């Protein structure tokens, strides 16, 4: 029966070519616009580390001074080097990581004249295990290396490609700021979006190319890229990266075995803040934040407001397209009242007529979906040409493909219900008499 309905639908579509084409075009446009924006939304609002995002927590302490301070405001964005070092020393969580960003040239002892500038993450031993870094060769460094300012480094797949042609470079030396460092690990290509462990260099920047112990980076007198807030005496005549500078620029993350452990850690952070206040280092009342990955991304408003706005706009557009399709389908259906009358007189039930017209709407919907898919691919191509830092991420995946088809079918069925119902209401006697 379904096949028969499909055949009828096909014939009717051909009979009203112009009107059918109009409907498919309008639906395709609506679906295409929706899928383009939804895909961007989906990619940008995704969970960067799904299986443990509820166990990874960002730490904020309020180390700022009282000038311009208001109760209830967000604490300073990053940690000071002093506090991050102190928390790391206490080791109150199964894993903890302090880190910050930089960019430096990396060369070989006898390498090319033009140095390769690479993004740097200065961090501590747990970083790779906490964020699930994929290893191609070797591994990370140990907490003892952190203590000893060991001259070790981990490099990304792409830097390994540039420096060593992709060979296993564990044990080789690189020159950074005039000093030799030994490579202990090489990563596989590693994509993490958003770049959640440090949002201050752009929310969707790529993972870093060069990793080394925080202590080593300080010993090499590396600088800092990213956000930095200073207060009071700030650098106090020295460098703002000094242990005792009143500047916050270090990101701090902890991992627990289960999400519930966060409460105990929060108590520890409050106790730490109070102790610092007693010692005269902190001036503000204890004001800590401990947010898991998704809460952190939400609080920092990582999803660009434009993207959300575009998505709403596209859905408004789809709504207009669906209303439009209802109107056109209705016109097309009522034009065929005579034919419906004949079919009803020959014994078709109201249900038969209803089903036939729903199938017809569904067929138009699938055609609209295919057109929409093409348009969405075109739309995403356009998005990728735009110069945002997230533009290159806009790709249609299997889930979004299924959603496209589902959305189109749903939209066309919703649009088809009313006309099909009206068709089923046609009274055979009246139609035949008019004829």
């Amino acid at each position, binding site marked *: 029966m379904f096949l028969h309905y499909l055949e009828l639908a096909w014939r009717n579509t051909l009979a009203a070519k112009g*009107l059918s084409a*109009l409907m498919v*075009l*309008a639906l395709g*446009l*609506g679906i295409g*616009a929706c899928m383009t924006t939804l895909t961007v939304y989906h990619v940008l609002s995704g969970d960067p580390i799904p299986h443990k995002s509820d166990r990874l927590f960002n730490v904020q302490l309020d180390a700022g001074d009282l*000038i*311009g301070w208001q109760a209830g405001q967000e604490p300073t964005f990053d940690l000071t080097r002093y506090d991050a070092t102190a928390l790391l020393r206490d080791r109150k969580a199964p894993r903890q990581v302090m880190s910050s960003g930089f960019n430096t*040239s990396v*060369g070989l002892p006898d390498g090319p*004249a*033009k*140095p390769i*500038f690479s993004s740097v993450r200065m961090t501590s031993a747990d970083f790779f295990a906490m964020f699930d870094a994929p290893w191609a060769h070797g591994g990370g460094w140990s907490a003892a290396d952190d203590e000893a300012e060991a001259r070790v480094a981990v490099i990304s797949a792409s830097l390994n490609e540039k420096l060593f042609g992709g060979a296993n470079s564990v044990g080789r030396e690189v020159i950074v*700021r*005039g000093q030799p460092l030994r490579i202990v690990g090489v990563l596989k290509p590693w994509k993490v979006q958003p770049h959640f462990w440090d949002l201050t260099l752009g929310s969707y920047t790529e993972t870093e190319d060069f990793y080394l112990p925080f202590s080593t980076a300080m010993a*090499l*007198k590396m600088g800092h890229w990213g956000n930095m807030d200073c207060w009071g*005496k700030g*650098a*106090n*005549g020295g460098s703002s990266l000094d242990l005792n500078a009143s500047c916050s620029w270090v990101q701090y993350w902890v991992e627990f075995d289960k999400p519930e452990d966060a409460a105990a850690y929060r108590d520890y952070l409050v106790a730490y803040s109070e102790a610092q206040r007693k010692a005269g280092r902190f001036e503000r009342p204890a004001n800590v934040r401990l947010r898991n990955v998704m809460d952190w991304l939400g609080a920092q408003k990582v999803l660009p*407001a*434009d993207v*959300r*706005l*575009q998505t709403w*706009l*596209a859905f*408004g*557009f789809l*709504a*207009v*397209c669906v*209303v*439009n399709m*209802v*109107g*056109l389908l*209705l*016109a*097309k259906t*009522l*034009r065929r009242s005579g034919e419906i009358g004949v079919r009803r007189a020959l014994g078709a039930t109201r249900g038969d007529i209803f089903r036939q017209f729903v199938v017809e709407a569904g067929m138009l919907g699938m055609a609209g979906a295919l057109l929409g898919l093409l348009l969405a691919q075109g739309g995403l191509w356009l998005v990728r040409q*735009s*110069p*945002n830092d997230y533009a290159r991420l806009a790709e249609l995946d299997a889930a979004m493909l299924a959603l496209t088809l589902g959305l189109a079918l749903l939209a066309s069925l919703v649009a088809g219900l*009313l006309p099909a119902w*009206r068709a089923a209401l046609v009274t055979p006697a009246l139609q035949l008499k008019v004829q």
Partner: protein
Amino acid sequence: MFKDLIPILSTLRRHRIAAGLIVLEVALTCAIVTNALHLIQTRIEALNTESGLAESEMAVLDLRGSKPQAPERSGAIAAEDVMRLRALPGVKAATVVNQIVYGNNSNNSGVSLEPDYKGTRVTAAQYAADEQMIPTFGLKLLEGRNFTPDEILDGFQAFSVADPVIGQLIINKVMADKLFPGRSAVGQRVYVFGRSPSTVIGVVETLTHTQLHRVRGGDGSGTAMILPLRGGGSYVLRAAPDQLDRVIKAATASLEAVDPTRVVTRARSVPQMRAGFYAQDRAMAWLMGGVCVSLLLVTAMGIVGLASFWVQQRTRMIGTRRALGATERQILRYFQLENLLLTTTGIVIGLGAAWALSQLLMQSYALPRLPWVYLPAGAVSLWLLGQLAVWVPARRAARLSPVAALRS
């Protein structure tokens, strides 16, 4: 003409669903298009913001070394480099500055009228450069004077003491008006880094925050100041627009030749930087525009489709009326009036929805209120659209020969 009104209303009453759909479509389109046009307008306004600089004549070069450089040397190195750049043919002026408009850096400092951050306080964009900044940027001095070469301090030395002493500074007009309303700012004292006062020696007209309307640091009011400090930063050149590309190449070669371990990592003209800075706004405006056009097209298609259907359905009625003496013009008017009625209903509902949507956008996205002119503009454009869309089917109806129409 208005005697048609009664038959139209009675026809529409019989086709309540189809009529309702047209009204709904027009209303939705009206609500979305007015707000989208307003969004486009806000983006275009942002695109036209004046930076106050001689943009078309400026270029920016970023230089990096692969070997660590002693920070106490950076001021001296910058001074030598700038001397070299000024000697290049075609270069009108050159300087090293800590930040530049459309760039990624943003330095801001609190400035107060009393020592130790007390009294009236503003947060200002903090530029640090030598006396060549004003000619290089093409800034206009409204009052006072520029720095003299011997007032320029070495940035590293100035900040290597706990209480930096910076004797003079230049502020922009916004800051002058804010700190010293109704009096001249020149000669006044302000405090930037604690206890030592700095004297305002000049006021420049327009000098913006580097991130303009996307300010994250600073207080967003547009206050900015220039400190007479020499240190590391971006190299900024000024040359005639047609010479700019050549000068960028010459400057790159000259800077890299001095020390082979240094690399010019980025060399761009300020118009290029501006285009990059506004790319997102421009893309958004295009997208909104595209959606508006598609929406209007889809709505027009809907009107054409339904009107054609009605014409076909009423062929016999049209034939009767024509046979009874109605002119082609009257038939045309009939369908036009019908469309006017439907679109007007849609527009009235749509304008209400547009207003509600704008309230929602104001709350959720901190967008400015929809100016009222958009409402009549949206109404007029949808009226026109409706009349245009109904023209083809209405004319077909009017051209029907009465005999053929009655026989069908």
